[in-house]
């Protein structure tokens, strides 16, 4: 219960200062009472699913939100998750480096693009919640970052394809030969990279590449989209949808 209480207290810290002062203590008490009554998993699921809506509503109702809560304030409040994420990335990158014995290869780049997108997403949400005038700019920036992240993944995928990962179906025209750019050095590394690719590459992609007079068409089928991309995109969608809805209401 102490851990749950501590996590929920962190979540309450994401609400605007005036809201926290008015209701923070009560919210914590109510949350504890609900968890004590049982079904902690259901309660957590509901709380987390509703969180983007509740936060967006609370921040958009803040009278002087631009002054009272600059975007950096939200980012600063997310410092614990950000530190945890950074630690995870460092650990994942380190294990990736060890497994593949290379500095510049697919797994590392996938992590870095995910990192770029996550931080970009958090920043965009923060700006969109704290300053309505920057909403459009923030959404365009988020879309660009998403595009960059996906673009990065796609270019990485070519390496994965070259390394024969992600269950590719390659249709090569006569005389075409794929280079093994980042071929894993061992069976363990190959397995690691394969599992990683399965979790981080899009479901289906068609690659067309020209090399001199040769053309390569590659169809890649792999696992689901990285959940981090999905989660961040959903968060942006919730925040954007909610703000647009509010703006329509007050128009």
């Amino acid at each position, binding site marked *: 219960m102490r851990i749950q209480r501590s996590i929920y207290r962190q979540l309450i810290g994401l609400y605007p200062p005036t*809201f926290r002062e008015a*209701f923070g203590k009560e919210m914590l008490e*109510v949350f504890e009472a*609900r968890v004590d009554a049982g079904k902690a998993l259901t309660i957590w699921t509901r*709380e987390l699913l509703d969180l983007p*809506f*509740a936060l967006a509503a*609370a921040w958009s*109702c803040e009278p002087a939100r631009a002054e009272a809560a600059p975007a950096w304030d939200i980012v600063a409040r997310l410092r614990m998750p950000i530190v945890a994420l950074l630690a995870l990335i460092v650990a994942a990158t380190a294990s990736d480096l060890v497994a593949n014995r290379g500095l510049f290869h697919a797994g590392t780049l996938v992590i870095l693009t995910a990192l770029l997108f996550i931080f970009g997403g958090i920043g965009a949400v923060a700006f969109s919640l704290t300053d309505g005038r920057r909403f459009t700019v923030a959404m365009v920036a988020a879309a660009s970052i998403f595009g960059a992240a996906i673009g990065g993944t796609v270019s990485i995928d070519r390496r994965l394809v070259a390394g024969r990962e992600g269950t590719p179906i390659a249709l090569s025209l006569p005389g075409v030969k794929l280079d093994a750019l980042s071929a894993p050095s061992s069976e363990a590394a190959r397995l690691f990279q394969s599992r990683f690719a399965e979790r981080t590459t899009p479901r289906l992609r068609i690659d067309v590449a020209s090399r001199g007079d040769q053309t390569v068409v590659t169809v890649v089928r792999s696992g689901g989209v990285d959940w981090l991309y999905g989660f961040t995109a959903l968060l942006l969608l919730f925040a954007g949808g909610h703000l647009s809805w509010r703006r329509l209401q007050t128009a």
Partner: protein
Amino acid sequence: MKHEPMSEQTFLILLSLAERPRHGYAILQEVESLSSGRISLSTGTLYGAIKRFLDAGWIRRVADPDAANAARDRQAYDLTGKGRDAVAAEAARLESLAKLSRARLKVKEA
């Protein structure tokens, strides 16, 4: 005074305070009971709504009549006259809609 139509959540939260003041957890339980378990609010959603109702003057903060000695400072929420009017207006709107629906359905059946 003209009232905008309310969402079901808003209506049920206000209705849960119609009989007597309740604290946050009791409101959640009452809303769940009034909706036969269909609507279960998150804590964040509830307090977001409470803030809006306080700002609109529909509810007010009072000392919790159910609080034990150890929690005497616990707050509860009570429906104001303005809030009661809003709930009554919404109930009348729903009643009128229900009447209209029944009348139309009868015409179709006949």
